[in-house]
């Protein structure tokens, strides 16, 4: 492969990585802001703008070279530019599909699945570290929501018991500010943890392509580009996922929203400090469920929780299948052209999904409409921009 083809290949991988980062942002806006939007603590557009700014800032907070969990689970020798590209496509596809169906699901798991699938087909099963996947991905995925449910249930219970005699006005205003504060912390932590993943992937790709030295740190423009992509995605707002998390799982009041975000922030901070890799999405969804249990046992819509749980179970294999397919397609055609063709196909499919979502849009105008058992509000369709 000539130098120019190599450069084109690297450029496509970087664009794909930033696209993934973008979907990571809009898919996960819900984690921090769904409860604040649902309770009316913040107007929808203000909530996503605040979250976007904090995601951007969070990306700059930690300057250590990104812990690229997605690459720690496969043998370093198996990682080629095409494998990284195909892995990103797998993650992207799953993020977009779950967004379309309004299902909160882990962007990290999607990326890991994609990379594993691409590695499996490119280098065989021996290149995948099975034990690492069990200990760093599968077990945390079970524990994260359980820990968050426990913390949020206790927190919500305490909040209601302690403030039962506080006048409604003080209570509502107090928890409104508390909720905004705790949701801001979740946004900040999201920017710090998730933008790092993209920075790590881009740095890795540049090293693999020989564009920078093996021990080189993350170039500044990569940090700025990753922070911008995740912030733009966050600002666009994944309204479909926000609606499920804020209205679908349980009906949330301000004190519950506060307890849920407080729980999420605590679990995310604690797990990143002690090196226990938990998915932000798994934690936040668990907290919302816990805030429903802590107030009234019957308030959680378990059918939606079950649908979400099923999606979490198939995240890895589904993203892996797309990752493997993308690698096979790129490899069949070969070189930068192969990667370019797969990129074009992915772009076309994403566009089709976007058009399909416009038929029953969920946006800032109808995200809080009453939950009638389905994602898109059926009563009316407003023509606001998404």
């Amino acid at each position, binding site marked *: 492969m000539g130098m120019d083809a190599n450069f084109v290949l690297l450029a496509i991988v970087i664009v794909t990585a930033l696209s993934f980062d973008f979907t990571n942002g809009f898919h996960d806006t819900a984690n921090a802001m769904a409860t604040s939007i649902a309770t009316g603590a913040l107007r929808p557009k203000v909530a996503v703008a605040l979250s976007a700014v904090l995601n951007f800032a969070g990306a700059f907070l930690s300057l250590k070279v990104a812990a690229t969990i997605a690459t720690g689970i496969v043998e370093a020798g198996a990682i080629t530019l095409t494998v990284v590209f195909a892995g990103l496509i797998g993650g992207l596809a799953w993020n977009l599909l779950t967004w379309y169906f309004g299902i909160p699901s882990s962007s990290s798991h999607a990326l890991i699945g994609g990379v594993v699938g691409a590695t499996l087909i490119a280098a065989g099963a021996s290149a995948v570290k099975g034990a690492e996947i069990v200990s760093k991905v599968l077990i945390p995925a079970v524990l994260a929501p359980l820990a968050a449910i426990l913390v949020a249930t206790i927190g919500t219970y305490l909040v209601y018991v302690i403030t039962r005699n506080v006048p409604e006005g003080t209570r509502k205003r107090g928890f409104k500010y508390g909720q905004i504060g705790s949701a801001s912390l979740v946004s900040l932590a999201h920017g710090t943890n998730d933008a790092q993943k993209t920075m790590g992937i881009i740095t890795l790709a540049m090293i693999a392509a020989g564009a920078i030295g093996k021990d080189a740190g993350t170039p500044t423009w990569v940090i700025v580009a990753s922070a911008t992509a995740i912030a733009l995605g966050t600002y666009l707002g994944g309204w479909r996922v926000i609606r499920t998390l804020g209205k679908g799982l349980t009906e949330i009041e301000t004190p519950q929203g506060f*307890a849920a975000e407080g729980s999420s922030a605590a679990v995310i901070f604690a797990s990143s*400090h002690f090196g226990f890799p938990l998915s932000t999405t798994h934690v936040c969804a668990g907290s919302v469920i816990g805030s429903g249990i802590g107030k009234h046992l019957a308030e959680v819509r378990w059918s939606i929780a079950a649908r979400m749980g099923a999606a979490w179970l198939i995240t890895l294999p589904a993203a892996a299948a797309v990752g493997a397919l993308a690698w096979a397609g790129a490899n069949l055609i070969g070189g930068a052209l192969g990667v370019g063709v797969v990129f074009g196909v992915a772009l076309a499919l994403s566009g089709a999904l976007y058009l399909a979502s416009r038929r029953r849009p969920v946006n800032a105008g109808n995200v809080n409409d009453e939950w009638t058992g389905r994602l898109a509000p059926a009563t009316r369709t407003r023509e606001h921009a998404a």
Partner: protein
Amino acid sequence: MSDYIDLDALWRVLLASLLAGAGLVAVFSLALVGLSSGRTAGRAGAGLCFLVVAAGIVLGLYTMLAT
């Protein structure tokens, strides 16, 4: 099983999460009780509670970034 789970890290995460996630949330709630009591002692107590919450947030940010 413990080959697959870092049990040490797990119980630390759980303990810290409970202290910060449920504990600070409860302290914040106590502050609202103090505020609405209308008494000076209540307001002072509320101020103290808010300080504890703020300190917890700063500590949390610091430890997360220092890792």
